Structure formats: C-alpha cells, structure tokens
C-alpha cells in the first residue's frame, strides 16, 4: 500500500468511499503469522504457525479456547487478539450462567463483529488490528467464521489468514469440497498440509505449529505435540512415495501408523 490522503482519521472517508484506517488495520492482519481453519459437518480444526522471535524466547499464543464448544485462532496484533478473546470468553460464560446452555457460535460472532464496527465509527478509537478465525458449534452443527477488523464476518468451509496464507488458500480451494464429509483425522491432516504450504520449504515440525480441534462430541482442546509430530511424520511418508502411488501409499501407512487419536 502506498501513502494515501484522508487516512489520518478512522472517521474520515476518502473521496473514493474508503476508510483507509480500516484497510490499514486489515493489512496488520496480513502481517501476522499464518492461521488456518477448516470444517466438516461435525468438526472444526484450527491450526497456526508459531514463530518465536528468537531461539531464546517462547512463541506467541495464537489459539485460544473460548468455551467448551468454541475456539479462536488469531492473526495480527496478538495483544488485540487477547483482549477480544477475553471478551468472547466473558460473553460465553455470561450466557452459560443465565441459560445453562452454550452460546450458539453464530450469535457470538455477530456480537464480536458489532464490537469491531464500533471502532470504525468513533474518532477516539482505532480498529482492532487482528483477524479471528472463530470455530464453534450450535444447534445446526459445526461452523467456521472469519471476523475482520472492519466489522465484517463471513462463514467459511475453510480459510487461511496471515502471512503467506495465499499458499494455504490455494491448497484449501483445491480440496474444500471433500471437507464437509471428511473424517476428523483427514481434516487434521488437511490442516497440517495447509500449514505446510505457508512455510514455503521450511520443515514442518510440531514445535512450530499448534493444532486444535472442536467437534460435536468433542470439547475444544489443543492437541499435544507428540500426536501432531506423529501425524506430520505420517504425512511425510505419504509424500515421499512417487506421485502415482499416492493412493496406495495412503492406505499402506494408514494402518500401522494408526496414531493414537484418542487424547
């Protein structure tokens, strides 16, 4: 993006009908490290790339449990992401307290979107610089939403945000039609593959990614490193086979590798 006039205030329109501050906030999301989400009828998988600043430091937490049935993955200003996660958790627990029932995720994302919109229409505020992939359940099943700093939200079958997310999106676009009826295991494998795409050659290990699952009978949780590493290895075995044999190879390593999915 180049420098623009009319971009000082979030409450100033440009002559072309744009709010530049909001668009700049969306740029901040693109600078964060990648996060992807995909869903089937009954499960949603959220995965993120954890980049630590140096070898000495720990990586930033990008996936948050909001309730037993809702989780979010963020990209962009993680501080803003943390604050919004706290808001989401608060909304969920207040609803549970009054109604003894989980807040339907579709209603939560609307509340979140309305909160983000407020910041696009007050001169003393700034938009949140974080995009959220919200994964959750309601009466109708599993849902994945993307909430953007502009206050818009969309429901997705699969989506990727953050840096180099385009590579992941290309992979997801190719395979998304299989997701609705995919098994939980296949969904996780597809998520890992998509994460791999964003790494562009760098080796995928369980220490640089985080994977979480939520499903109809499965409360939201982050999968442990060991299981992820085993899954990554099973992916690699499949990849090493010549392209034509991929089908056979998949069957071959499915059985001995039957990694302990039960966490």
């Amino acid at each position, binding site marked *: 993006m180049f420098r623009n006039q009319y971009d000082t205030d979030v409450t100033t329109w440009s002559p072309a009908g744009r709010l530049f501050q909001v668009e700049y906030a969306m740029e901040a999301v693109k600078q964060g490290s990648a996060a992807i989400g995909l869903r089937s009828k009954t499960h949603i998988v959220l995965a993120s790339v954890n980049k630590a600043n140096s070898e000495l430091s720990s990586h930033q937490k990008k996936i948050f449990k909001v309730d037993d049935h809702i989780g979010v993955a963020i990209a962009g200003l993680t501080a803003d992401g943390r604050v919004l996660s706290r808001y989401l958790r608060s909304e969920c627990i207040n609803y549970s*307290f*009054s*109604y*003894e*029932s989980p807040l*339907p995720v*579709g*209603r939560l994302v609307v509340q979140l979107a309305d909160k983000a919109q407020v910041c696009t229409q007050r001169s003393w505020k700034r938009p949140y610089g974080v995009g959220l992939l919200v994964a959750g359940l*309601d*009466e*109708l099943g599993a849902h994945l939403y993307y909430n953007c700093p502009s206050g818009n939200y969309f429901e997705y079958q699969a989506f990727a945000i953050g840096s180099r997310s385009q590579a992941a999106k290309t992979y997801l676009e190719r395979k998304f039609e299989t997701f609705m009826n995919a098994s939980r295991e296949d969904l996780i494998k597809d998520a890992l593959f998509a994460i791999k795409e964003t790494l562009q050659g760098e080796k995928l290990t369980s220490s640089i990614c985080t994977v979480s699952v939520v499903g109809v009978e499965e409360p939201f949780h982050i999968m442990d490193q060991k299981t992820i590493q085993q899954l990554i290895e099973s992916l690699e075995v499949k990849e090493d086979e010549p392209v034509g044999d991929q089908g056979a190879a998949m069957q071959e390593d499915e059985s001995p590798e039957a990694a302990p999915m039960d966490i």
Partner: protein
Amino acid sequence: MNSIDSTPAKQGLASIEGSERTLYPYVTGTSVIGIKYKDGILIAADMGGSYGSTLRYKSVERIKPIGKHSLLGASGEISDFQEILKYLDELIVYDNMWDDGNSLGPKEVHNYLTRVMYNRRNKFNPLWNSLVLGGVKKGQKYLGMVSMIGVHFEDNHIATGFGNHLARPILREEWHENISFEDGVKLLEKCMRVLLYRDRSAINKLQIAKITESGVFVSQPYALKTFWGYSAFENPTKGAEGSW
C-alpha cells in the same frame, strides 16, 4: 442491607423515601401440577384468582405457552405472573429475531427464570410466584420449578402450593416413566380433585395443557365430577344442636 436483622432493614427501606416493593400478594392463583409423560409434559391448573379469601376471578389462565418448546404454569400473585410473561415475551422475540436456526428451549427458559426470581429476591422485592416450566426439545423432556426465592430444581413431577402437600404423595405413588396420555390426564385429575375438596382457594374449573415435540395444546376449561353424598353431610348439625 443487614440480612441478619430483617425487620429493621425492612423498616429502613420503607422509611427512606416510601419505597415500593412487594410485601404480600393480592390476587393469587393456587396449585399447579405438572408431570412428564410418554410424549412430553402435562400441566394442570385451575382457573381461579383469589382476592384473599374471596374467589374473585374465575377465568384466569394460569398456564401459557412460551416460544415453541415450553409451557409455563404459575401459582401466586397473578400480576407478577403477567409481568413474567412480559419478560419472557421480550426474551422470545429477541431469540426469534436472530432467525438462525437456534432457539431457546425449556432448559434455557427455566434457568433464565431462576436468575430473574433469585435476583428479585436479593433485592427484597420478589415476584410472588411459584413457577412450573415444562417442555420438549429435540426429544428431550424437561420439567422444572422455580420458587419466589429462587429455589429451582427439575423432576419427573412437580407441584406448587397446596399441591406440594396433597398432590405430591399421589404422584410419588402412581407416576411411572412413559405413562400414557390418558393415564397422565387421569392422574392429574385425581390430584386436582383432592385439591378441589381440600384447598379452599381451588375452584372447579380447570385446564390441562400438554406439550410435545409437535407443539402446545391447552384444553378448554372444564369441571371435575365431585361427590358430596356422604352421610355425615346429610345432617351436619346432628352432633351439635343449635349450630349451623
């Protein structure tokens, strides 16, 4: 507010600025009985509204449908019941406006009511009702009760007011899982009959409401057959000449 010594606190509240809060009920409904049966829930209540010891109103509907999945029956102050219906109406309208395939079921309504009743109790300004909330959602039957102080629980059969003393023993003996509709109605009528004989605020005009997965049905008001031909009633002053 000093909760240990309630009398000075109440006086204190009244003397500051002439506070307005519920002290006693005026127009009251008597017992409500509810049971789970094979296809859903059955709730029975008479149509009386007593003004103290006078049976003043005789067409008070004390059972109302709430949303698509629930029925609410109330005993106690009728005006407070009407207030609760207003709150619930707002809640249901708000829920319907989402139009997203999700809806508040009986469990959610019950918990909402519990919160409302308990919060009012904490402010020493209760809604003077005992509420019976029953419903079916996605095949799950639900029957619960909330009292005016916020005590709440779920059970297979519920009774309020005099029903606690007179109907509950009958229900405990004769209720069983998956009782049929006909047997359920007979059981409720048996309890209502006992209440009619023994509760002075009961009248012989009742409604029975049923809720199943397919919807709500509230019966037209009807009366129970009663029997008063006991020999002791024939010459009531026999043992006490001169009395009436």
